[in-house]
């Protein structure tokens, strides 16, 4: 099996010839720039560039040599953009780590040590306080209430840092020939690589509510103002379906996986009851996944952090085939339980290594135990792609990343 066949076998619930592995195919399944820098020095490859392709979370794009070295089976179509040296410039992060930023991303250091980001109109859209390692949203356009009209929603959405400072390929979405370029570059990537291809579309619904209204307000809204919430969601759906239409036309026959996002869980359980999910979000998620299934050959993938065990039956009905990051230390998210109850219906893309305690602060031996335990619980019969639980954060020592790959290698 080649890498792509391995990933597709897993998604089709057939056991591949070895565990398929993802590090870096989405901005929530990758490696932070600082961890990437530390890793490349540890393994004697200081020549690898550390290119921060998701500037919000400060995530590095794994280069071709890294993909080969660690046997990574899936890549993001976005890597086909920003592929010239002049697309990047050298910069030193506040902690002293030398990295590269895309040329369009120019944060402004502040007297207190924070790095702020302003848009072309001078609006502060993000900040990274001194000591932090990613950018937080600072602009909440609907914080004071819902607008009467959503006519200008497309102009408002880029005020949210996730959209305004977005990762490739979407940092090029404003280019006149973007959709033609997307197809051409995806096809070139398909021709040059035997890895599975990911396209990250987001199309978040609950999260867009929290971006626009701020989490605390939107949580109250879904309880007290469902009609206003539905109006907003319908306006968002209009934008999302426009995006999906273009994505399916451009790469629906090239990409293997279409990655949606909507963080629905906290550590202790979903943000909302299954009843609320069914009322407000499920029908709309279903429209999005139906569109992809009817208009492309891509598989549907949902990234949702937290404990979503109680929502999984509804998420399956909403049309998601793959869930990520499988936050195994959250309540009710034990790998054995998830596999037993939902293993026939879902592919678990994640849950391979805990990135909150074990990978960050455990010994290499503890990391290996964690990885082996998770693989043995989740991989039988296919339906599993190895990925850390979310990104490998800056504080993860390279020894532990190596231990993780050594344990994975026992299964491939």
């Amino acid at each position, binding site marked *: 099996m080649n890498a792509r066949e391995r990933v597709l076998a897993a998604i089709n619930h057939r056991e591949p010839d070895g565990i398929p592995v993802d590090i870096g195919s989405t901005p929530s399944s990758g490696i932070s720039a600082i961890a990437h820098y530390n890793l490349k020095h540890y393994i004697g490859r200081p020549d690898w560039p550390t290119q921060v392709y998701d500037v919000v979370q400060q995530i590095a794009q794994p280069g071709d040599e890294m993909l080969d070295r660690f046997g990574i089976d899936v890549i993001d179509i976005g890597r086909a953009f920003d592929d010239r040296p002049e697309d990047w410039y050298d910069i030193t992060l506040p902690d002293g780590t030398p990295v590269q930023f895309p040329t369009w991303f120019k944060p402004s250091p502040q007297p207190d040590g924070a790095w702020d980001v302003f848009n072309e109109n001078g609006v502060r859209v993000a900040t990274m306080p001194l*000591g932090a390692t990613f950018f*937080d949203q600072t602009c909440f356009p609907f914080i004071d209430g819902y607008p009467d009209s959503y006519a200008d929603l497309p102009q408002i959405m880029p005020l949210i840092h996730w959209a305004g400072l977005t990762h490739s390929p979407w940092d090029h979405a404003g280019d006149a020939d973007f959709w033609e370029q997307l197809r051409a570059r995806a096809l070139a990537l398909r021709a040059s690589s035997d890895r599975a291809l990911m396209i990250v579309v987001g199309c978040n619904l609950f999260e867009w509510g929290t971006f626009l209204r701020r989490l*605390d307000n939107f949580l109250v809204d879904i309880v*007290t103002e469902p009609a206003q919430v539905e109006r907003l969601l319908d306006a968002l759906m209009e934008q999302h379906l426009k995006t999906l239409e273009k994505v399916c036309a451009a790469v629906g026959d090239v990409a293997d996986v279409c990655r949606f996002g909507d963080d629905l869980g906290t550590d202790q359980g979903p943000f909302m009851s299954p009843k609320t999910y069914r009322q407000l979000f499920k029908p709309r998620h279903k429209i999005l996944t139906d569109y992809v299934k009817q208009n492309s050959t891509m598989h549907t993938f949902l990234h949702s952090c937290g404990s979503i065990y109680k929502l999984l039956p509804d998420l399956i009905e909403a049309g998601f085939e793959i869930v990520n990051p499988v936050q195994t230390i959250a309540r009710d998210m034990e790998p054995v339980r998830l596999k037993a109850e939902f293993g026939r219906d879902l592919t678990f893309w994640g849950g391979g290594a805990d990135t909150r305690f074990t990978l960050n602060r455990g010994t290499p031996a503890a990391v290996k135990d964690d990885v082996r335990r998770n693989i043995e619980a989740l991989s039988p019969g296919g339906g599993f792609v190895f990925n850390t639980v979310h990104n490998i954060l800056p504080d993860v020592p390279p020894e532990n990343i190596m231990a993780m790959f050594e344990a994975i290698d026992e299964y491939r």
Partner: protein
Amino acid sequence: MQEELLDAIFDAVMDGDIPGAPATVQAALDGGLDAETILRDGMIAAMTRVGELYECGDYYVAEMFTSAKALQAALVVLRPMLQQSQVQATGTVVIGTVKGDMHDIGKNLVTMMLEGAGYAVHDLGADVHPSRFVAAVEEVHPDLVALSALLTTTMPSMQATVDALTTAGLRERVKVMIGGAPVNEEYAEHIGADGYAQDASQAVSLANALMQVKAQRSA
């Protein structure tokens, strides 16, 4: 009559009736109930029930948040009356998200839940330097200091804050509780904090337990 007035407050908080909750408190005051009874038997009782429903999975974060907001709205009416009649708070808390971390939604929910349990809470906000916690402890003499962090990369600021309290000679005067995604019981012990709570509901239980320990020690 009195029971009906208290029930109305209880229901408004439970149902997350943010616009309606203040009027139920006003009606109870007009009906002759004292501020302390309204607080204890109406509002704290309701938030305790909200916490129980959250713990057993009937309420979700969205419902808990909405109830907490309704309680906040009701407290605006009640707070001047509580001050006037010098009702003792359950305890005094200084709370903040630690240096380098600007995530405050979890901390804000804990603040509201603690207020709902009758605590006087001094919220220092987010990205709070250890020296500001020290200054606040010197100024308001709290029983508890509550520290929040969302990131594995900012949780060391919790250690720095505990150390700063120790250096300032204030550590013995307060109980320190911590919470947030990257921390756990073991980490609380490691940095010399007095306890860890995994969510806003359990933060209230922990605060109550720490208050008891404190009371026993000073008795």
